[in-house]
């Protein structure tokens, strides 16, 4: 008998609860809620600080943005730029690599990392990265010049000449 009463009461309770749930929690007021994303705030702060050359604080801000959203390439990219401007090339290279890993089409990262490695006399890797940058953007003039410079530094003047010919062909000349 107890089971019977329990089941009846249970059914009626669920039924009433259901009818209430589909009727009561609705209002005529608009229910837009403001959401703040910490990653956005840190990133915006980082950009302002970078433009003011406050590099240590900018790096902190970008790093904070990354802790909130590690899978977004531009956060890593701007952190890399900041490290590079600080002269912290090793950490800059790590961040550029993170950018490339997240977004293999992010050609500025190839360009800056290629330059960085070229300056460190790691020509082979630098040339490889710059070649990838110009593959991704065949109108990336400064990357072509950087690539031509690296070819010249390694004594490969033929390749450097070819680049200048190409630039002339597409209407750019130094």
């Amino acid at each position, binding site marked *: 008998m107890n*089971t*019977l009463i329990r*089941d*009846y009461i*249970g*059914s*009626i309770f*669920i*039924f009433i609860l*259901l*009818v209430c*749930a*589909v*009727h009561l*929690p*609705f*209002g*005529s*007021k*608009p*229910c*837009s*809620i*403001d*959401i703040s*994303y*910490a*990653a*956005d705030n840190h*990133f*915006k702060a980082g950009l302002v600080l970078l433009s003011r050359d406050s590099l240590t604080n900018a790096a902190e801000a970008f790093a904070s943005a990354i*802790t*909130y*959203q*590690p*899978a*977004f*390439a*531009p956060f890593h990219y701007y952190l890399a730029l900041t490290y590079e401007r600080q002269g912290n090339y090793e950490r800059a290279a790590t961040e550029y690599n993170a950018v490339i890993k*997240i*977004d293999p*089409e992010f050609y500025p990262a190839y360009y800056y990392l290629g330059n960085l490695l070229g300056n460190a006399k790691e020509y082979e890797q630098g040339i490889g990265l710059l070649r990838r940058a110009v593959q*991704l*953007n*065949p*109108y*990336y003039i400064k990357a072509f010049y950087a690539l031509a410079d690296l070819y010249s530094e390694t004594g490969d003047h033929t390749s450097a000449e070819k680049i200048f010919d190409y630039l002339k062909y597409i209407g750019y000349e130094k």
Partner: protein
Amino acid sequence: MKNKVITKERLLLALIFFFMVGFKLYTVYKNQYFNLKDDTGMFWTESALQQRSARIVAATGQLPVLDKEAQYPEGLAYKSRLTTLMEIVSGYIYRLFIPKQVPFHFFLIIFISMWSSLSLIPLYLSVHLVTENKVSGLLACIFYALTPAIYITVTAPAFELQDFALPLIFTHLYFFIRAMKSSVPLKYSYAMLSGVFLLTALSSWHLTQFYYAIFVLFIGIVLFFEPRTDTKTFYIITVISFLGGFLIPVMRTAGFLFSFSMLMSYGIIISTLLPVKKYSIKRASLLLFICITAITTIFIVTERIPEYRFVYGLMFEKIRYLGMRPADPSKLSWETLVMWVSPFTSPSVREIALFIGSLMIIGITGVVINIKKLFKKTINVYDAFFLLFTVVFFPLYFLLIRLDVFLVWFLSLQTAYVFSAAKKSIRFLLVLCMLINAFLLFNQPEKILGPNRNYLLGLIYYIRNLTPQKAVVLTSFPFGPSILTYANRAIVLHPKFEAKKMTSKVKLFEHKLFEPEKNFYDYCTAYGADYFVYQADMVMAQGPESIRYRTHNSTINKDCAAYKFHFQPKNLDYFRLLYSNPHYRVYQVTEKDSLEPDIPVEYFRIYDERIVNLNDLNVL
């Protein structure tokens, strides 16, 4: 002693339950894109929309009757059009019981992981009820817990209505069988429980109606062959559903009282109540009512309630073409093609092997055992009930992969019959099959639902920070909820086709894309769109799930709006390109006179008509 055994079984059942919950949480947590601190882009399409609704409930305790932001400018009627029970329940649990330090999106994952795993309990109880063997019940649960198909939606990660509704449907089934097995007065109380669980499922997921239709069909079949069957349980369930059709706004709007399942229920009840003693007349009346129901349903679907047309139309065409899309898409309407996309596609052999695994073999063995009993006429009505459901869900699964969750539940139930029938020496084969499924489960390839996360984040970041708060954004319908939920901007299109006017808006949008720019601009201004998000696949994709395929635009010309959005933004007269990444572009909808100088945007090869092979894209 008996109590100890029960406790031991409950403990084992709890262990299986927590294994399921733990596995779901672990899979989501190890997903490279899961982020505890920031929910941007975590859910995709409908799940994102549902996350937002639940978030509104959690924050304010209510949903707006008409949400203009979710469907600009006419507004989305949550109460009368959408099944929002899952969002209301989860939102209120968070609001009332969860510390606010727990991130809301993380709570949703825990909630849906736990809720969806509750299907285990009715499975155990149902097996126990029909086989009266506790070990069989646990075995079926282990098979269920080790089958990869049941983890797909939650671990995507997603916050889907089906994961909320399924435990309710299975609990209804359990109470139905229990009511059938019990005598008066317990029969009525179980029937009531069965009815309210079904009603709750009906108010939380529109597709429950299709399950209900199969359920009613089963009752019809049983009554046809055995007119003396006691139908009081069915009467009670129908009465509760009937009340729901009046009292639940979303069911009232969808014309549930005139749905196929309800019309058939009325027919069955009338035929059983006819004051005739001859069974042949009862059978004839039953057939007559089923025919009348079918004709009325066709009339209602085509003339009165167009919302049903999409799903019924898809099912009809799928049966007509045996689940394979015809080579020429123009043979199918836009309405059918827009539905014929994942997860409404058919599973491949690989998918069946990967997601169902050895359960398919054991489950079919169980089905064969029961079919043998059926031919020998030794089968009881409960076993026949589960047999019918298992058999019916086979073709349905082959038509719609989304129905795998039903099939897996019924196949798991069938394993119990194999265990009961098998000799001890053969039982090790069952263990082997379990191991195979365990291997498949732990070696599932990582499945990421939705688009490339980095580009999605780039677009959302742009809209969230660099467009006005009151801006209205036009996107494709699957993409809209991401803008609404994570960028907090009003959207024109979303994937809830049951919302008023949504299908006609989506259809028009997809067709206008391939018309001259002015026509598309007129569409944008008619719906008040300030920004338009162009997706590279609007032109690049030509596959069976693409917009070009379903709008029958296998070839396009260079004058159409989509081509210009992709390759010639400078030649546009009414749209200004503001942002670009390899997957998305943001255009401002602006009149020609107000055109300002072009804003320099980054170069990407995919948008360069000098590099892209236009012949491959069938551009005239």
